[in-house]
């Protein structure tokens, strides 16, 4: 159902920015995700991590929003990682090949460490 309160909130830790997604990732999340990206990418973080732990339903419009973030990240030279995806949405990320362009980590610590390991291109 609609989550009106900040569906995408930003935290900073260990040089990376974490975007905590909550509720449905669909058209209604668009403005919030754009704002979150602007905030997360502002300080030139080592990476931006998408936390899907609190996310519910993700539809194709939500996928398009993630593609938009990914395009912005590529343009800005920022790496994106993700964690907290359910097996089903992990499969969706594989079908759409999103998984080829963002590292899917099992949890937040791995996601943060992965960014510190910095073997990005």
């Amino acid at each position, binding site marked *: 159902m*609609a989550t009106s309160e900040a569906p995408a909130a930003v935290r900073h830790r260990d040089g990376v920015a974490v975007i905590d997604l909550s509720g449905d990732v*669909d*058209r*209604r999340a668009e403005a919030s995700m754009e704002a979150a990206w602007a905030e997360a990418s502002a300080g030139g973080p080592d990476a931006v991590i998408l936390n899907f732990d609190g996310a519910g*339903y993700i*539809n*194709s*419009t939500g*996928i*398009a*929003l993630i*593609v*938009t973030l*990914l*395009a912005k990240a*590529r343009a800005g030279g920022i790496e994106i990682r993700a964690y907290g995806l359910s*097996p*089903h949405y*992990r*499969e*969706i990320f594989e*079908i*759409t*090949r*999103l998984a*080829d*362009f963002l590292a899917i980590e099992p949890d937040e610590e791995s996601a943060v460490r992965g960014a510190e390991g910095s073997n990005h291109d």
Partner: protein
Amino acid sequence: MTALTRALRRRLLGQGAEPPREAPALTDSPGDEPAPIDIAPNDPLLPYLQSASGAIDTEALELDSPALAELRAAGVRLVVPLVSQGELIGVLNLGPRLSEQDYSSDDRKLLDNLAAQAAPALRVGQLVRQQEAEARTRQRFEQELEVAKLIQQNFLPKQLPELAGWQVSAYYRPAREVGGDFYDVIPLPDGQVGFVIGDVTDKGVPAALVMAATRSVLRASAQRLVDPGEVLERVNEHLCPDMPEKMFVTCLYGVLDPETGHFRFANAGHDLPYVKTAKGSEELRARGMPLGLMSGMPYEEKETVLVPGDSLLLHSDGVVEAHDPEGGMFGFPRLKQAVADYPGGGELIDRVLADLHVHTGPGAEQEDDITMVVLQRSAGAAHVRHNGAVPDELLAEFEVESAEGNERLAIDRVAAAVGSLGIAAPRLERLKTAVGEATMNAMEHGNAYQADRPVTVRVLAGGDTVRVQIADHGDAAGESEAEVPDLEAKLAGLQRPRGWGLFLIKNLVDEMRETSDGGRHTLELALRLEGGDDGDE
């Protein structure tokens, strides 16, 4: 102690209760029961007795009262009012003392004490009798209602027919004072089906009996005669001679050919049914007098064709005549609009009931019986049998209004419909996402998010496969995503970020096919119940 007493009846004015039949009477000897004296309601003696503080000497009282004169003539010397909680409930009438002396002040004190104790006891006795009488009346009334309800429910169809390509829904709720609504579904030769809705004037047991008779005659006539007009004519001839005075029956009878969608009907003064088509809603008119009024009446016969996606609402006047707290009726225009706006089938009934509830306000008692029957022709093509094997079983069929976010409703209802098939969780998730994407496409591309263009979803199970058909009002060409999404191209800005829907569907289900027929576009998703990839994450 004393001599003469008389039972005295007081007429109870406008209290609706029976007068207390026997006030406590003290008589000097059996068989010497004097006739009771009636006090007229406007006799000035009444207010006097009501406010008197004790025993009253009839000789000393100066009052222009016929009752007082009558009491004196009967030899009554003392009248002791019995007053309970300010209400005069009886009197003790005493003749002269046997000793022929006047009543002493001690006597009067004794009488006052006696009256003070007798009055509440008498009052309790009266109340108990009154309540017993009321309870008996109420019980008789409830029993009658119960009988009427039983008769009526016994004659309603126990189950609705399952017709391939059709959804038949019905709702019947009697008012507390059971009215005479009824509906019936009659199987006819050649796979045709007769539909009846009717309303007997009057309520309770008489209406229920006439309803039962009408239904029986109608059933018998429907088997022998083909034309709906002829059937009503015959029923009218049967009912007229025995119809109780001031009673009649309104009734619509129609014959549906489920193969072709032809619906032939005749109407004996019943509320006009509404048919919902792609263009909106309209009444189905046919002239005819109510049944049981006059013999020799002709019944006009009309015909309409219900095409896929159409639905027909038969209804009773309990719907349009429901009042709001200010006395405004729900009315025909509102019902007609509801038929145009809402999806058909059972959902139409649910939505009309919800509107009715809003109209009458919370807690309002239902005034009249409410009956609705909906015939909905499925939007998709007729059932297709796959592999010539087991025919598909229709697990669910419903409509979803084209509004943003409503794909979630489709997902939930499909998930519920396939719940018993034992699909492993990962495959079920794929089906859900595919259904959501297909519904979004249908709402957006096929129906342009127009509220009057719902998406129709059917869930079928056959063999080892579940099929979900999602139909909209668009044409196939317009809604396929033109390009295969390529993430690299999207990231490079060569493709728009969107356009994942069909691609996802194709990759999530085992088979996807599109069909188009006469302004309906259907996407069918097929998913095997078990797949070799069930072990996947």
